[in-house]
């Protein structure tokens, strides 16, 4: 399949937006402005960009605490995401979610889930509703290699396969759980792909640092879902540039391994590919400058925004907008 140049430029732009946004999130964490924790997807942008480009309006993204990229690239406004990270009034969840729970339902970013595995059955349920209602929506669920060992993974994969649900399960295999290599805790080589046959599914492996490959794989899986042929389980091989969370220096990773993967930075790889395809360097420079300006703008705007109104503390437990449990 030939991907056209506008699509390619857009894939590049989206990866760069995610990269700069998360680099800024890291800086703000070090500055002490972003409290709590962050789990960055630096190095894993091609998975988020490839899928977001392949998805349509109405499709639903379910992701993890490592979900900034996915939420941003489905179209959530960057300043509202920044506001949520910094706990400001412009936060997309009013400051009630935080870094691990970015959500923008209006864009189909159906939430970032921080208990490993929980969102797999939830994503399957959203797909089930699409099937029952006869819409042509698909849901896409992103999770890590470590997630393939929790019960909810198995429950969700099995029922999604048996019910032929329009859901795409995407394992971002970055080789580590928090600090322990996935290879230490599985009996097979490929945590997701090698388990696929147990659900009657094809074991699909894609280079998760090659955004074109991810995009094409995503299109195929989404088309299959929309044809009513059921779920897919895709293992995208990728790597975190940084640690698991916060300021984790990731000392547990061999330096040769880190070096090898840094050479395979998805953004560098794609830049080289685009230049080889005769894209003007100036066009790429411009994309980068625009992305940086967008991040700067979101940062300044958020820094100038006050904390959330404290009235929000007691709202939105219930659909009536409040939190009353008694009369």
């Amino acid at each position, binding site marked *: 399949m030939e991907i056209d140049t506008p699509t390619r430029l857009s894939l590049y732009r989206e990866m760069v937006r995610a990269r700069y946004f998360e680099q800024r999130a890291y800086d703000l964490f070090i500055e002490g402005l972003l409290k709590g924790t962050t789990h960055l997807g630096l190095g894993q942008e091609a998975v988020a960009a490839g899928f977001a480009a392949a998805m349509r309006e109405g499709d*639903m993204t*379910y992701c993890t605490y490592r979900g900034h990229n996915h939420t941003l690239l489905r179209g959530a406004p960057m300043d509202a995401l920044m506001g949520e990270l910094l706990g400001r009034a412009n936060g997309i*969840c*009013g400051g*009630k*979610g935080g870094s691990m*729970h970015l*959500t*923008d*339902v*209006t864009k189909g970013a*159906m*939430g970032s*889930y921080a*208990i490993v595995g*929980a*969102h*797999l*059955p*939830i*994503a*399957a*349920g*959203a*797909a*089930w*509703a*699409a099937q*029952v*209602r006869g819409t042509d*929506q698909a*849901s896409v669920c992103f999770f890590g290699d470590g997630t393939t060992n929790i*019960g*909810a993974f198995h*429950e*969700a994969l*099995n*029922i999604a396969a*048996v*019910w032929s649900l329009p859901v795409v399960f995407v394992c971002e295999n970055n080789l580590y759980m928090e600090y322990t290599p996935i290879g230490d805790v599985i009996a097979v080589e490929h945590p997701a792909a090698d388990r696929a046959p147990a659900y009657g599914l094809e074991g699909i492996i894609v280079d998760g640092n090659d955004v074109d490959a991810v995009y094409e794989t995503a299109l195929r899986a989404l088309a299959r879902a929309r044809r009513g042929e059921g779920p897919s389980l895709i293992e995208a091989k990728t790597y975190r540039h940084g640690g698991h969370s916060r300021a984790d220096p990731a000392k547990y990773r061999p330096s040769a391994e880190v070096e090898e993967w840094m050479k395979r930075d998805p953004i560098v790889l794609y830049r080289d590919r685009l230049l080889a395809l005769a894209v003007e360097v100036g066009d790429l420079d411009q994309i980068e400058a625009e992305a940086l300006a967008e991040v700067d703008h979101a940062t300044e705007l958020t820094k100038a925004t006050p904390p959330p109104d404290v009235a*929000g503390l007691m*709202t*939105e*437990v*219930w*659909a009536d*907008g409040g*939190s*009353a*449990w*008694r*009369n």
Partner: protein
Amino acid sequence: MAELTYRDAVARGLAQEMERDERVVLIGEDVAKAGGVFKTTAGLLERFGPTRVRDTPISEEAITGMIMGAAMNGLRPVGELMFSDFLATCWDIVTNQIAKTRYMTNGQVELPLVIRTANGGGARFGGQHSQSLENWAMAVPGLKVVAPSSPADVVGLLAAAIRDPDPVVFFEHKMLFPIKGEVPDGELVDELGTARVLREGNDVTLVALARMVPMALEAAEALAAAGISVEVIDLRSLVPLDTRTLLGSVTKTSRLFTVEENPRLIGWGAEISSIVAEELFWDLDGPIVRITTPHIPLPAADELEDLAIPSVQRIVETVRRSAG
């Protein structure tokens, strides 16, 4: 008016709502072809078809997770957990996901779903199929908690739970399934968060839930013969909690007794007691007394289980000793 069992009332309530709203669907283990292990969903598959009434694998996280996802995408699903004890296998989904998501997304996500489950002891099933777990659910912000005691309440409160825009855990008491009661004809929709005064009295207030309600009524009858006038309140719903009815009754009687099937520590009666102690302390004529299952896992043998769960006799004796 028709006489219906509590068991058939479940199917009646579900059918009523499935008939009027095609977004209402039902999943669970053995709910479709088999009609439920307690036969509470008999006939629904035949009536509403396999898309809307569907058997699942033995996957409680999938059942609860899928109804959550489905509620996020336009359905009003009902999921059955065969026994409430199995809530423990999907407690993450129920408490961390279903209960909190509306709040954590600041209202972006609405979850109109119902988890129905068979609750409670008395069937000699032993410690893993007999628990009364309504107080677990009550302890989690974001869950509504309902536990009906009569067939009419099953229909009306189940309908209300399905129409409610928030997640509801609906506890059906397995010892009540065979009981019969009058259920009005036509559409029946009750209101969550409303307790009922089932018997009026002046000397003491007896607050009960689910299977403890018929026991409390029987005890009240016996106590009347002994000259103690008992007001019996069926809470029906723990969240929202109808404190107005409760406080009104205790204002009148000045004595409160709770009858709880859950084990003692942090049972729902502890919350009720604390509310009454804080708000009506000066109206009370004596200590608040909680009649509960002791803080033990439930045993299986007849004699042991009967001794553990509050009985009519224990209620009568406790009230008599303390208020006579």
